[in-house]
Each structure stands twice: as structure tokens, then as C-alpha cells.
């Protein structure tokens, strides 16, 4: 049975009880009213009996014709009252019958009395006899009337008792009704407590568990009501979550396996592809060293080209491995001082190429939340590019700083080198894409692909603005806000 039905049932019980009490009060009211009517009728009968007695006495004492007429009237009135008396119970009917009998008997005696007193041919002896007879009659009459009065009072008592009984019954019904209502209310309270609040409490506990990450939490869902339905839905939900997570887990395992394969592949590439290159370079050099004097210039040039190509392929392999390593390494995000990194790279470039004079403008305290080794690689590529492409510029300037744009702070690396045509900008970040001939500027064309991959791994972005002959500016931002000095614990982990 569900909670709604139970609630309806409880409400219906309470309402039914109230209706029952109302009905009982109504019924008692009718009963009291009825009994009151009976009592009044009984009083009327008693009054009529009294009147009859008075006129009977009056006739016995004064023998007036008026009293005789009055007796008849009173008697008729009493008969009418007795005939219409509103009594239905057996007991009352018996009393009434007794009353009717007594009245009829009294009337007969009175008639006899009349007959004896109106006998004109009576002698003295007769008169004596008549007098004694009359005395006898009047005595009997009086006794009868007295008995009738007593019976009438019994009827009155009976009515009063009926009123009392009705009132007592009302009291009992109200008491029972109130008790029933109290029980119903207690039942409703218990119902709410046991069937609503307690299961909701368990549900709440379950949601808390699941929110805390306990996906395997299962609710007991054996109830057949709305809460049971909710519990089943909840279990279905956690089951769906578990399934999704299992699926994600499975995919992750697949990815991990794939990653392992790539790693194994990279390892092979790193080891096995370089070995033949070493042979090509080594044996070419051996030829040049051992037989150089027997070879002409063309042959030596060819051998040198073989060596240069082998070495260049070696570098390409190394950089490709670097690119794949950028994708594979796990990020360890913490505060990284870009200014310090830029200064270190600038110093090392100055040391490597002391003949060049480049003006470095590096903003202080540029701090980002990032993986430091990867940021070093990114900055190295960007700054080495800037250094390389200002190689033919007089008064070369390389700037590293931040700029506010569209409400966001972006870092930039700017140079005043050769620049390039923006038409080809979208090709710039692809692997092995070059915008200059290698004879002009050396390089494998992989550096910016690595840089872009590094920023992507940080959920960041890199873009470029350039003009031929006027230098290039690389802008980048990371998901984490710039100049964030407070240590963010959840990212440092």
C-alpha cells in the first residue's frame, strides 16, 4: 500500500469518527426531544387524572349536574390523551394499558354511582343501603384514581430515565470518538515517522554517501510505496553511474594500453631507427678518413651529404620523440616563474652566440600555474625561434611580457626579426611545417608543434601575429590565471 493511500485511509478514519460522533449527538438530541415530549404528555395525563379526581369528588360531595358534565368531559379528554400517548416501548405500553383499564373501570364505577344516586324510588332502607354502596363505590373510585396517578408518575419517571440514558450514551460516544481520533492521529504520526521520515532519512544518507563518492552504496528497496519507488530509482541511478564509470574505466584501460604501445613504439624508434643512421654516418666518415685521398671532390661531397642527411634524420627522430614525450608526460601543475625561465634561456643563448647583440626586455614576476619542465621546453622553443629569426636584424629586440586583451591577460614573446606572411600562419603550428627555407634559417619545423601541444595540454592556447620584415609576436594563455600567487593545493597534488 502506498503512502498516499495510507494517508487517505487515516484521514477517512478521522472523518468517519467525527461523522459518527455527530450522528450520535444528533440521535441523542432526537431521543432527548422525544423523551421530553413524552414527559410533557405524561404530565398532561397526570393533570387530566387530577382534574378527573377533583370533579369526581365534587360530584360525590355536591351531586351537581355540572360536575357530572365536567366528569364526562375530563374522562373523554383523558381517553384522548391516553389514546394518543407517544409511547412505543413495551414497558410504557403496559403502563398505558393499565392506565386505560383503570380509567375505564373508574368511569364504569362513576356511571354506577350515577345510576344509584338517581334512583327515585328508593326507600329508607334502600337509602341506607345505597349510601353504603355509594361509599363503597367512591372508596374504590378513589383507590383506582390514586393508582392511575401513580402509574402516570411512573411514566414520567420512565421519560426522565430515557433522557438520562440518551445523555449518558452521548458522553460515552464522544469519549470513544475522541479516543478513536487520538488513535488515528497517533497512527498518522507513526505512519509519517516510520514510512516517510525514516525512509527519507535513509535516502538522504544514501545521497550523502554517493555524493561523497561511494558509488557502490545500495538502498534496501523492498517497500511497495512511493519511497520504495524512489529507492529503486535511486539504485537504478547509482547502477547507471557505476556502469558509466566502469565504461570510462574500461576506456581508460584501453587508452593506457594504447599509451604503453606508443611508448614501446617510441622506444623502438629511439633505439632502432638511429642505429642504421649511425652506421651510415660512421662508415661514410670511415670512407672519408681511410680513402679520402683516393676519392675526387664529387665523391667526397656525396659522402658528406650522406653524413649530413643521416645527422639531420637523427635530429628529426629526436624531435619527434620530444613531441611524443610532451604528450605522454604527466603534468605536475604548480606555480612557475616564466620571467626566471626566460632570463635563464636568454643567458644561455648569449653564451652560445657571444658575437650577437640582442636586446632582451623581460617583464618581472610573470607567474603561471603550469608544469615546469614543459613550460621550459615551450619557452625554449619560442625564445630560440625569436633568437633565430632576428639573426639578420640589426638592433634585434626580443620582448617577453604580458598584455591585457578582452579582459584576459596573455603572455607574449615578441621579436623584430624577419616575420612572415599571415596567410601561412595556420600552417605554422603543424609538425614539419616551415615558412623559411632551411638555407636561410635552420631547423626541423617541429618546435612550434611541440609548443602548441604543450599549451593544449594545459588547456591553454597559442596564436601569432606577424608581418614580413617586421617580426612576429606569439601570444599564449593558460587555463590558470596569470599572476596567481596563492598556492592552489588541489592543483599542486
Amino acid at each position, binding site marked *: 500500500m502506498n503512502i498516499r493511500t495510507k494517508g487517505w485511509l487515516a484521514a477517512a478514519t478521522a472523518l468517519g469518527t467525527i461523522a459518527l460522533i455527530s450522528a450520535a449527538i444528533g440521535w441523542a438530541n432526537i431521543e432527548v426531544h422525544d423523551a421530553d415530549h413524552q414527559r410533557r404528555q405524561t404530565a398532561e395525563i397526570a393533570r387530566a387524572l387530577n382534574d378527573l379526581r377533583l370533579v369526581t369528588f365534587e360530584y360525590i360531595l355536591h351531586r351537581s349536574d355540572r360536575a357530572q358534565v365536567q366528569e364526562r368531559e375530563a374522562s373523554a379528554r383523558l381517553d384522548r390523551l391516553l389514546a394518543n400517548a407517544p409511547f412505543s416501548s413495551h414497558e410504557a405500553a403496559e403502563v398505558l394499558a393499565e392506565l386505560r383499564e383503570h380509567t375505564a373501570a373508574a368511569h364504569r364505577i362513576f356511571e354506577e354511582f350515577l345510576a344509584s344516586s338517581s334512583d327515585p324510588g328508593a326507600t329508607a332502607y334502600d337509602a341506607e343501603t345505597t349510601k353504603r354502596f355509594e361509599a363503597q363505590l367512591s372508596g374504590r373510585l378513589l383507590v383506582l384514581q390514586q393508582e392511575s396517578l401513580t402509574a402516570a408518575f411512573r411514566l414520567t419517571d420512565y421519560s426522565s430515565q430515557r433522557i438520562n440514558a440518551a445523555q449518558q450514551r452521548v458522553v460515552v460516544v464522544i469519549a470513544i470518538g475522541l479516543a478513536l481520533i487520538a488513535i488515528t492521529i497517533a497512527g498518522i504520526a507513526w505512519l509519517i515517522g516510520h514510512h516517510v521520515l525514516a525512509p527519507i532519512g535513509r535516502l538522504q544518507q544514501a545521497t550523502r554517501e554517493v555524493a561523497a563518492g561511494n558509488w557502490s552504496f545500495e538502498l534496501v528497496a523492498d517497500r511497495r510505496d512511493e519511497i520504495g519507488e524512489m529507492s529503486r530509482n535511486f539504485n537504478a541511478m547509482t547502477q547507471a553511474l557505476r556502469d558509466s564509470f566502469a565504461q570510462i574505466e574500461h576506456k581508460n584501460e584501453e587508452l593506457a594500453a594504447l599509451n604503453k604501445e606508443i611508448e614501446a613504439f617510441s622506444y623502438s624508434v629511439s633505439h632502432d631507427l638511429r642505429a642504421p643512421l649511425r652506421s651510415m*654516418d660512421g*662508415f661514410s666518415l670511415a670512407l672519408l678518413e681511410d680513402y679520402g685521398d683516393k676519392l675526387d671532390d664529387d665523391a667526397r661531397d656525396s659522402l658528406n651529404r650522406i653524413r649530413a642527411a643521416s645527422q639531420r634524420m637523427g635530429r628529426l627522430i629526436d624531435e619527434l620523440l620530444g613531441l611524443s614525450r610532451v604528450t605522454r608526460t604527466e603534468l605536475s601543475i604548480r606555480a612557475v616563474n616564466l620571467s626566471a625561465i626566460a632570463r635563464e634561456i636568454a643567458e644561455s643563448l648569449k653564451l652560445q652566440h657571444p658575437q650577437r647583440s640582442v636586446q632582451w626586455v623581460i617583464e618581472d614576476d610573470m607567474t603561471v600555474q603550469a608544469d615546469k619542465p614543459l613550460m621550459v621546453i615551450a619557452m625554449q622553443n619560442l625564445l630560440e625561434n625569436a633568437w633565430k629569426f632576428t639573426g639578420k636584424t640589426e638592433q634585434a629586440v626580443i620582448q617577453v611580457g604580458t598584455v591585457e586583451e578582452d579582459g584576459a591577460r596573455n603572455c607574449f614573446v615578441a621579436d623584430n626579426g624577419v616575420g612572415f606572411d599571415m596567410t601561412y600562419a595556420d600552417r605554422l603550428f603543424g609538425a614539419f611545417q616551415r615558412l623559411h627555407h632551411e638555407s636561410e634559417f635552420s631547423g626541423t619545423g617541429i618546435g612550434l608543434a611541440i609548443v602548441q601541444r604543450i599549451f593544449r595540454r594545459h588547456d591553454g592556447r597559442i596564436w601569432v601575429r606577424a608581418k614580413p620584415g617586421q617580426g612576429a609576436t606569439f601570444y599564449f594563455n593558460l587555463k590558470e590565471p596569470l599572476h596567481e600567487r596563492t598556492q592552489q593545493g588541489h592543483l599542486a597534488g
Partner: protein
Amino acid sequence: MSEPNKVILLVEDNQDDVVLTLRAFKRSHLMNPIEVARDGIEALDFLFARGAHADRASAPLPTIVILDLKLPKLDGLGVLKAIRADPRTQYLPVVILTSSKEEQDLISGYALGANSYVRKPVDFAEFLEAVKVLGIYWLMMNEIPPQSLPQ
């Protein structure tokens, strides 16, 4: 130039690399005898005088082992582990000479007790320089512990 009785054990499976390494030693004027093992098992057989090298029972250990990592049968790290596990060879200088620049190999190599880790460059001129420096250091400058070690 160097003491000729100091034997070098070169563990290398690539014939080209063997030839180039021998050439590099020769060109660096390192005249020490060089023994070549073609896989990990052969290297251990040589060191512990087993199998085909059983006759070496009384021969001294090589002064240095130059070890490639990618080897048939038993890889370089396995060989290194076996060398360090045996009391006779636990202090034997082992230089890893390999193509791999993988961080994991470097860490594993040092963790297992390699004395040095050198990457073979593609440029033979650079390789020559590396072998020269390596030979001078390990064969001439470095002092090795006495052969009979307290057990």
C-alpha cells in the same frame, strides 16, 4: 698508451655498432683487448666463466663493461642486475652505451647501479669523441677496487 692487460667487455648485438665502436677505440689509440658479447647471456657467461667461456675460470675480470641496453635473450638492464647481484662482480664498472634517451632507461640504469650512462650520437665524429673520453677516463684515470673482495 694504456695498459694493454686491461680488458674491455663490449656487450653489443649490432655488428655495425661493434665495428664502429672498435674503430673508435682504435682511432682513440686505446689498444686494450676488447671482448665482444652479442647478447646478455653471452655477456654473463663471459663474466662468470660459464658455457662457451668455461675456460676463463682463472682469467681476470674485464676492467670495464660497455653495455648496450637493447639486447637479445637478456636485455642490458637484466645483465646489469645480474652483475650487481653477484659478489664477484658487484663493484665492476659498467658504462651503459645506448641509443636510448628515454628517461625511464636512465633512471632504471642508475637505480640498478650503472656507473655511467652515455648516449650514442648519430654523428660519428661526436661518437668518436665520446668513446675517447670514456676510454681515457675508465681505463686510465679511474681506480678500480682490488679483484679479491671481502665476501
